[in-house]
């Protein structure tokens, strides 16, 4: 599973972009999106997902159920 950003809530503030350890976040049409192929839910990097921790709008960076849970490579 990866994280996703709910576009209607994103303020486009860019706070998440530089914090992502996987460089999975980029700007698109004024808001930010997460590349699910790159997102590791910050496992192995930080205790909490950085986009969630820094986002000024609660419940905007959320688990994307469309993808299976991220599993760290053995």
């Amino acid at each position, binding site marked *: 599973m990866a994280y996703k950003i709910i576009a209607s809530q994103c303020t*486009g*503030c*860019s*706070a998440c972009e*530089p*914090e992502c350890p996987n460089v999975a976040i980029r700007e698109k049409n004024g808001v930010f999106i997460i590349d699910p192929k790159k997102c590791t839910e910050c496992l192995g990097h*930080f205790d909490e997902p950085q986009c969630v*921790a*820094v986002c000024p*709008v609660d419940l905007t960076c959320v688990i994307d159920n469309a993808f299976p849970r991220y599993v760290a490579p053995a």
Partner: protein
Amino acid sequence: MQANTEHIGIEKGKPLEQLLEKIADHKGCGTSSDGGKASCGSSDGPADMAPEVWEKVKNHPCYSEEAHHHYARMHVAVAPACNIQCNYCNRKYDCANESRPGVVSEKLTPEQASKKVLAVASAIPQMTVLGIAGPGDPLANPAKTFKTFELIAKTAPDIKLCLSTNGLTLPDHVDTIKAFNVDHVTITINMVDPEVGQHIYPWIYYKNKRYTGIEAARILTERQLLGLEMLTAAGVLAKINSVMIPGINDKHLVEVNKAVKSRGAFLHNIMPLISAPEHGTVFGLNGQRGPSAQELKALQDACEGEMNMMRHCRQCRADAVGLLGEDRSAEFTTEKIDEMSEVVYDAETRKAYQQLVESERLEKVAAKEAALAEMSDDEVSDIKILIAVATKGQGRVNEHFGHATEFQIYEMSSAGSKFVGHRRVDLYCQGGFGEEETLPSVVRAINDCHAVFVAKIGGCPRDELKAAGIDPVDRFAHEFIEESAITYFKEYVAKVRSHEIVHEMRGDADIRQGAYISAA
């Protein structure tokens, strides 16, 4: 980023150490132990300020009350990200009619910002200061902030650079701030006690972790005060902004004032909370009120014996352009800037304008001193009155009552005139016809004043002001404000003495909260 010493040399030709020593000696400016009040920075000008400090602030509208009549500033919104959440801030919504910090209409890249600065500086020769104030925190966006400074320093080296921060990452950036020759930094410090802070800051993001509650406030205050100490040590002038939140930090701000003064802050700006439900802030939604004009002034007065207080802050937007109190940002949208092919920086016109201002300034100071000198000893009395002034700038009474969107407030006493604040009002006159219903709101905004100075006023508002006990005065039209105010005050005291009038205290006044609709 390169330490571009080529184009932004540090204080060219001035021995840096010498300057730093003088600033350090001067810290907290006006700290005389006899409790004497300091006016430097906040009002009169060079009187009790080290020449080096005066040189740094004299053309800075946000640091010198005297300068804000003549010089303009602009903010560029290159820093959208923030690393803390404040209960008085909600950056989710933008509205072109709103004037409050943290609000912008569009964000810019450093390149767009740099072009905009050149365009504005060429169109508005009094624009001397470029600030980065958000809409997030400039130091939570260090790459964008410093890239902008680098570009501007290259093309317009005469423009002063400043920034405003919440201070969380300030200690990490003091060296860079110094290297870019940024000589004014504002830190917003609302508390020095985490017990108080937990009611203002729900969370902070620090070192890859979100902290909440008292721990968040403890980290924030430690970092803010460390950052302030480091700025002082580096010789960078620091102004402290504090938001006065009744019932939460209003009494505590006296402690904050002492804490920042002892760490070398140069100026303290206590601002009223702007809070309305439609802003969508936590405070707005839970009904937290802002202070009244009298509560704000009482706190500012209480702190004034300690250090310089700034009272002319307009709490402007993170993309404001123009003199304080006016906003010309709509003239310089990204669209319009992008349309301009090449912006030629007009350094000559700017220099000529600034020389003209210098001569006007000297004239104004001379006029004030002459009027004060005439105030003979037998006129000394305990009477204090407030006078509201309608002005467009240049330190003159030069605005029509009906066109005023704000009034400047001067406190008059035997000691002379003192600028103590300003009040925003809804435009009374719209298209030539005075709007009856807005007059009461104007009266409420200046209800603590005995008189209002205007360049011109219609018959109807004149009568209503009189009925409210406020004397409408248009005989000083286009004269210097302070000279006129002293003349008026002398006559007022004489009339009280001759029992022609009875001196009475006036009531409290409102601080305007809602969206401000520009006349433009």
